[in-house]
């Protein structure tokens, strides 16, 4: 009985996790009001609604799952807004229930505590704002976008969608690493579920599988990192971890540049966590799953694979910034990997024709920017870029989705042109334009400011100037491929052919422009993308995002105060002009190659360039053969190894067993003739044996 009483006792108990080891600039963790813990669980209401709809035949054909999801996400967004307003720079902790709670004696490191509890600080709120906000908007978009699947598929989609938001909330709001890991794997699973939404398509199933497995590789790194944190610091809870005296001591050492005194194992943690971040945020070499993930429905791509889930890696590093600071090589590695990814993905993106894939590579590339930003110690820049990117990239994807929806699955930029001039596509075009300007870093857009922050820091951080140059080059490439899409698809002559979802004569096809929900969402997002630049001008030194970061664990006190100058000027000011120039140059090249003088969808001036037919261009189009390389290096050898093992299992391991089985049989076969079957033979044996035995007994005694 006492067990059950204890169970009841523990439910709903709010535990105060105070940071006993004060010190540092981190605010003490205070218990928060219980209603704040409702936000992550609200999406589960959506899941339940979807489940009920799936089970009740009468509801199955309604749009209830969608509206339930939209409503629950909207309420969650409202709650997050309320949390933000009441947060006031504090760090709160809300306990829901005990999850894994194991202790072996007293003292630090003698208990493994990972509760369903939420750590709410400004970093959390920053992420949650766009997770729930964009979630609600994109769900609204999907109400219309997915309506041809009303029925079980609809329920499945929105259940996955809601579950994703729940998992993402857990990831962001967790107060310990294990709950974050739950969210981390949860979003991976939801991504799997939603990429594989069109489960009859083998490519979708394969893409889903690939996404999950590649993510799992990263997850292993993350899991090992979490274990190492536990072994090193004896806790998994953020509050205790960031207040850990050893960690604070190491941090002081690291800021003084004295890494030699920090144990290798502590430095290793960041490297392991980094692997997890690379997997989830699609960084080189684990980026390969993200372009394939475009097999999922477009709202999924917009929410999961552009705006929210893929920024989890950035979040992890931002959240664990103290851990990364004490590692000598982790942040430089992050910076370099981010830079390489940014450049690599941009080059591939330039050569693609599938607009969704271009956006996917663009996402990978922009994530590279964010990582580079983290690597050059501007966590504000990275977070700011995450924030702006979430808006404009979601817009881009949703616009692509609208095109895809309107043209029966057509995604090839060579086959659709001049949307602007067609009826009903104005909002889409405008939203697309705003998002493209953001992405290409057009002056005074949100993307412009956030990218500049990263670029400027890269130039002034000692030892990272090369990164700055590469990122600058990539900015130009980004502007080019972004407007390549815009100039090809949205402006220019009206010309189109339907995609493969259109059955019948190509001539009978009429594109159908988006409905009110899609237009509404695009309008909101477009305006949002336009206005997101404004957050740079409100709040503290680095804008609103800067003030949000300042109160969290991602804060780095040397942030933005690098004394360095660029060409003798303030780096930010210089960068405004330089990157604007580069961006405009990219747009101009795109205009020249893809818009000027184009008369039909399929051909343009770019085709006439010798370069586009070259081998390098083809390699870029074939994604530098990275997939094939992995296939050759890992998948095939492992598969072969599996076959070899199976062969060994059947013929050697089991064979050995069978030999043991055969030995008695052989012995039996050998002595079988001695069994004559005649009574006398047996009798003689018995009596002779008895005689011999007695003889032995007698001789012995």
């Amino acid at each position, binding site marked *: 009985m006492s067990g059950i009483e204890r169970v009841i006792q523990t439910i709903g108990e709010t535990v105060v996790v105070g940071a006993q080891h004060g010190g540092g600039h981190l605010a003490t963790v205070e218990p928060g009001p219980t209603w704040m813990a409702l936000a992550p669980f609200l999406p589960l209401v959506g899941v339940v609604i979807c489940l009920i709809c799936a089970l009740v035949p009468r509801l199955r054909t309604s749009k209830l799952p969608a509206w339930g999801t939209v409503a629950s996400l909207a309420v969650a967004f409202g709650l997050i807004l309320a949390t933000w307003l009441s947060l006031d720079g504090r760090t709160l902790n809300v306990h829901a229930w005990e999850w894994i709670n194991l202790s072996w004696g007293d003292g630090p490191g003698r208990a493994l505590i990972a509760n369903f509890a939420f750590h709410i600080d400004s970093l959390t709120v920053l992420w949650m704002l766009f997770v729930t906000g964009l979630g609600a908007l994109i769900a609204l978009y999907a109400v219309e976008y997915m309506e041809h699947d009303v029925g079980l598929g609809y329920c499945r989609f929105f259940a996955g969608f809601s579950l994703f938001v729940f998992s993402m909330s857990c990831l962001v709001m967790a107060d310990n690493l294990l709950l974050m890991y739950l969210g981390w794997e949860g979003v991976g699973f939801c991504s799997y579920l939603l990429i594989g939404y069109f489960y009859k398509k083998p490519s979708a199933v394969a893409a889903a599988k690939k996404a999950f497995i590649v993510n799992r590789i990263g997850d292993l790194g993350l899991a090992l990192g979490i274990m190492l944190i536990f072994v090193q610091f004896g806790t998994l809870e953020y509050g205790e971890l960031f207040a850990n005296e050893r960690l604070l001591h190491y941090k002081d050492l690291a800021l003084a540049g004295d890494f030699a005194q920090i144990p290798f194992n502590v430095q290793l943690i960041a490297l392991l966590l980094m692997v997890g971040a690379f997997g989830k945020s699609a960084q080189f070499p684990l980026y390969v799953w993200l372009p394939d993930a475009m097999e999922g429905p477009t709202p999924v791509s917009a929410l999961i694979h552009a705006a929210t889930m893929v920024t989890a890696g950035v979040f992890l590093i931002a959240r664990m910034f103290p851990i990364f600071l004490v590692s000598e090589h982790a942040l430089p590695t992050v910076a370099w990997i981010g830079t390489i990814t940014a450049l690599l993905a941009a080059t591939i993106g330039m050569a693609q024709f599938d607009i969704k894939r271009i956006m996917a590579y663009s996402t990978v590339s922009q994530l590279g920017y964010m990582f580079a930003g983290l690597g050059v110690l501007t966590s504000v820049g990275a977070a700011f870029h995450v924030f702006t990117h979430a808006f404009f990239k979601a817009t881009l994807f949703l616009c692509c989705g609208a095109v895809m929806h309107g043209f029966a699955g057509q995604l090839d930029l060579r086959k659709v042109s001049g949307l602007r001039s067609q009826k009903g596509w104005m909002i889409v075009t405008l939203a697309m334009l705003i998002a493209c300007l953001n992405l290409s870093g057009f002056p005074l857009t949100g993307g412009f400011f956030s990218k500049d922050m990263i670029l400027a820091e890269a130039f002034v951080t000692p030892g990272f100037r090369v990164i700055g140059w590469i990122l600058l080059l990539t900015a130009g490439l980004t502007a080019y491929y972004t407007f390549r899409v815009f100039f090809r698809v949205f402006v220019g002559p009206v010309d189109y052919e339907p995609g493969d979802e259109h059955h019948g004569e190509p001539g009978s096809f009429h594109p159908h422009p988006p409905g009110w929900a899609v237009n509404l969402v695009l309008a909101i997002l477009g305006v949002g993308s336009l206005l997101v630049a404004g957050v740079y001008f409100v709040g503290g030194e680095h804008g609103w995002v800067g003030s949000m970061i300042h109160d969290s664990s991602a804060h780095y006190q040397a942030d933005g105060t690098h004394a360095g100058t660029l060409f003798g000027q303030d780096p930010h000011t210089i960068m405004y002009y330089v990157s604007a120039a580069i961006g405009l140059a990219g747009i101009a090249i795109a205009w020249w190659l893809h818009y000027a003088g184009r008369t039909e969808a399929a051909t343009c001036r770019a085709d006439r360039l010798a370069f586009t037919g070259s081998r390098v261009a083809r390699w870029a189009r074939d994604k530098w053969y990275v997939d094939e390389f992995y296939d050759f290096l890992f998948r095939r050898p492992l598969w072969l190894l599996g076959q070899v093992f199976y062969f060994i299992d059947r013929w050697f391991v089991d064979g050995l067993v069978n030999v043991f089985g055969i030995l008695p049989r052989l012995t039996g076969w050998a*002595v079988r*003739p001695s*069994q*004559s079957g*005649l009574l*006398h033979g047996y*009798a*003689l044996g018995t*009596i002779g044996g008895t005689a011999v035995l007695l003889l032995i007994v007698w001789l012995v005694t």
Partner: protein
Amino acid sequence: MTALLAQSALPAAMGSGVLAHYLFVSVVMFAIGVIGFLTRRNLIIMFLCTELMFQAAGIALVAFSRYHLNMDGQTFVIFVLTVAAAEAAMALALVVLLFRRSESLDAEGWSEMRG
């Protein structure tokens, strides 16, 4: 005590040398039974030989009973007799069965259990 013993029908003690005589007879009879069992091919005679071995055992039992002035040996002979009777009944039934099958009592005619 002595008075009562004298009155009873219990014989006087027997020496171990005398016992050896009986045991020797018993052993020889047993050996003859064994040899008979091994050499004869007639099923019935073979069973008779087993009875002979029983008998040898019986003699030894009774001799020891006499030597120890204890009734257990004789009691045991009763059980030997019982077993012998039961065995005879079963064995003979089997012999009859076998004879019906092959019209022969030759033990060598039966070797179904050859390995």
